[in-house]
């Protein structure tokens, strides 16, 4: 029988996304083997993130200062807003170092099967930002799946009457991939989004 404190830790770890019983058990035994200082450091980091991190009031990004570092950066072009589903999507776009605009985090995507409707995502906040002026373009960077696409269509519908250009991230072939393995939808989208060279 597993000792109650260890069982408790395993139980808590299984609540994390993508962590099943076996992984939770492996992680718990790993923590148990490490020095106390390391466990304390992990516990402190978890508590700190919960007490110090909050949502930016402008873009919903996770931040420890208000507004967040991106919204507060005068070198960023606030007239271009890139819309993402979750705060962690910002990091993926920032890695490119090509985007110098600002972000808006929707806090989800339209997902009828999960009961997530338009009122459950922050499209109103985006509309308010566009209405407040000086926004030239909204780039919708939701996931390239059915839910992300429905969300993009909903955003486009909500912005239709406003004086702003709404664009969608391109769909297509992954760099380093092979045409042979492209499915018909991806290939059709790649053809549709082709550009002159």
């Amino acid at each position: 029988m597993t000792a109650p404190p260890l069982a408790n830790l395993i139980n808590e770890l299984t609540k994390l996304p993508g962590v099943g019983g076996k992984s939770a058990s492996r992680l718990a035994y790993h923590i148990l083997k490490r020095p106390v200082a390391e466990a304390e450091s992990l516990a402190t980091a978890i508590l700190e993130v919960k007490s110090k991190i909050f949502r930016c009031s402008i873009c919903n990004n996770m931040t420890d200062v208000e507004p967040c570092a991106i919204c507060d950066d005068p070198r960023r072009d606030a007239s271009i807003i890139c819309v993402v589903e979750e705060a962690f999507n910002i990091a993926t776009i920032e890695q490119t170092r090509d985007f110098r605009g600002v972000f808006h985090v929707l806090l989800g995507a339209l997902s009828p099967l999960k009961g997530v409707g338009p009122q459950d995502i922050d499209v109103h906040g985006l509309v308010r930002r566009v209405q407040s002026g000086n926004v030239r373009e909204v780039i919708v960077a939701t996931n390239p799946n059915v839910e992300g696409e429905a969300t993009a269509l909903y955003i486009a519908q909500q912005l239709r009457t406003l004086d702003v250009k709404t664009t969608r991230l391109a769909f297509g072939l992954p760099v380093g991939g092979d045409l042979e393995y492209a499915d018909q939808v991806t290939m059709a989208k790649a053809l549709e989004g082709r550009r002159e060279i």
Partner: protein
Amino acid sequence: MKPKRTEAIVLHTIAVRERDKLVVFLTPEHGKRKGWAYGARGARSRFGASLEPLAKINIGFIEKESEEVVRIESVDLIRSLFPAQQNLLGSIAATYIAETVDTFAIADDPSELIYRLLDRTTEALLAGATPLAVVAYTEVWILRLSGILPSLKNCIVCDQPLARPLRYDARVSGFVCENCTTRDADVIPNDVADALDAIMKFPVAEFAARAESDAVIFELRSLAGALRRHFLGHELKSFDILASLAGSR
């Protein structure tokens, strides 16, 4: 172990772990099945767009007797619904249809008729049929195929032939004749009863082409909704979202 190969339509998927998907799919011979698609969420996944909801595919899977969830080995896309999902109402309607079929299809129970219904309704959406007409058609037929739709020909109480106007009595979940009717029975307008007949008689594309009025479609859906809720004891998750987006057109 040799994989089983069959035609299938994806009902929905659940993101699992870092890069995997749990896929719920409907097949004509094996009914509704669940399968692991390892690595399906990766940008260079071999599954590509073939595991998106309502995609029609040729699927190869391996099943172990002791396990409920099969392992998906290969998928070839036959038809994607992606073009129809470029329209917001069409996209939400497709999700709603998938949820409806997912709710009524039974796991491991061969369901060729339900499969054919889903196949034809998906095809109609792709051909540009009015999404709500396709939804109404699906709602009525799924009740019929599940044995829930009451007879449109005979009174549910006395079995006498029904005459127009039809009367629906929610207390007995069926249509009643003039003699058995009570104050609580709803009179079904004749144009709605005609549309109901048309759903029973025609393929989905032909029904959608009749271009029934919004009011008739609404009445049909209300009737089907009442029967469905009575049977399930709850409403489908995507019902309200479809209703709110259909209302905001």
